[in-house]
């Protein structure tokens, strides 16, 4: 099993969620984060005062899935989340040892 941690632009959340649902992803977890990446570092002026944009609001998705699904999921995310502009985000794939559904105590694939 793998965990995908996906950083995307906030307004792409609905599209990505739909896309992942469509390929059979049954659950995911979303949080609000601030991102610091290539998109940062330029100067902006707000009310006549200069500052540097360092952190940009992003959405982080966490999805655990069977290893077989990963490739398809990545494809879907690339498809839905890309705008082609800097700051589109990243996908990180991490290994997962075990998943347990709290309600039933089920483990492994059934629990995802």
């Amino acid at each position, binding site marked *: 099993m793998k965990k995908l941690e996906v950083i995307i632009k906030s307004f792409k959340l609905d599209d990505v969620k739909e896309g992942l649902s469509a390929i059979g992803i049954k659950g995911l977890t979303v949080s609000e984060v601030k991102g610091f990446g290539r998109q940062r570092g330029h100067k*902006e*002026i*707000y*009310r*006549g*005062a*200069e*500052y*540097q*944009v*360092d*952190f940009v609001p992003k959405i982080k998705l966490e999805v655990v899935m069977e290893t077989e699904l990963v490739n398809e999921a990545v494809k879907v995310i690339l498809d839905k989340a890309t705008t082609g502009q800097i700051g589109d985000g990243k996908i990180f794939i991490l290994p997962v040892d075990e998943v347990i559904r709290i309600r039933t105590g089920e483990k492994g694939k059934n629990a995802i």
Partner: protein
Amino acid sequence: MNAGDTVFVLLSAALVMFMTPGLALFYGGLVRNKNVLGTIMQSFILLGLITLEWVMIGYSMSFGPDIGGIIGNLDWFALSGVGMEPSESYGTTIPHLAFMIFQCMFAIITPALITGAFAERIKFSAFILFSLLWAILVYNPLCHWAWGGGWMGKMGALDFAGGTVVHISSGAAAFIAALVTGKRKGFGITQYIPHNLPMAITGAALLWFGWFGFNAGSALSCSGLAANAFVVTHISASAAALAWVSAEWIHSGKPTTLGAASGAVAGLVAITPACGYVGPVSAIIIGLVAGALCFCGVMLKSRFGYDDSLDVVGIHGLGGIWGALATGLFASVAINPAGANGLFFGNPGQLWIQFISVIGTIAFSFFMTFIILKVVDLIIGLRVSIEDEERGLDISLHNETGYN
């Protein structure tokens, strides 16, 4: 004594009192999350501090028997002799106490305005001492000069509701205070974006609402003149809000809510000295210029590189100066026979008088504020430690956080 006038002044006093919490929200919304309470506190506590100062000595210094056109004496210490009967000189149809408390609210909000200049970095103890000294040594004399029988009023300077006394004085003090206090950590790099704009706009709305008491109430009796002051106040705020937003729209394509709110405040500031002397059409012009001018002032700030955090100079300073001069342009005895005509009504001399009053106010406020700040810095130190500034004033000074 007139019940109608008394209601008018008392409820106007309530409205002006309400402006200080309004300012607390306006400023509080504009700072970062970690400083919201520290900023609100600086306005709120002045309700307590300046009220006592005013009742004990401030009112007497400002409106008490004149000493050489410079200051009132302390005959009215702790309001002795200030009672339920009308005074002989101020608001002769209302209880003397009503006039006193109406003026008290002006004395409170003026130092509160300055707090925008050194927001997010000053020690609370230093702030308290500064504000107390400033109220005594700057506000009270200026108030006396303009309204209490001092030289400025005698010279014929027109200031209906506090253009010099309140706005220029605080705007000038803000300039010095921003310089002396120094920039916030990370100035030019860190993003000092308002943490809660709905709060700031609510604050601006409270200011607008309260300003009706501020300006119309200054008529001290509920007459046609009060109605005129009310109307031009509203018009100027409206025109300035539109002007600011339009300027932004042209400049960057994005009209902002903070622009609308700032514009409204700029228009309210500018009409303050003029509201008892000018009519509605003049008010439109005064407001439009105020909005555009203060927008430019705020946008050019970065050129000068000082950190007037919440734009007190750009709005109250610039707006106040424009308002005082505009009074010298647009004043008309057709509106107020007790006033004078301005340049556009055939009396260029008035503009000169207004100019003198502006220069006098700025110079006095600059000088005194500088001294006071230096003294406070010596005794207490103005700024919090760099670590406290990073953690934010809320937690480091007040051991509270705004939101949990």
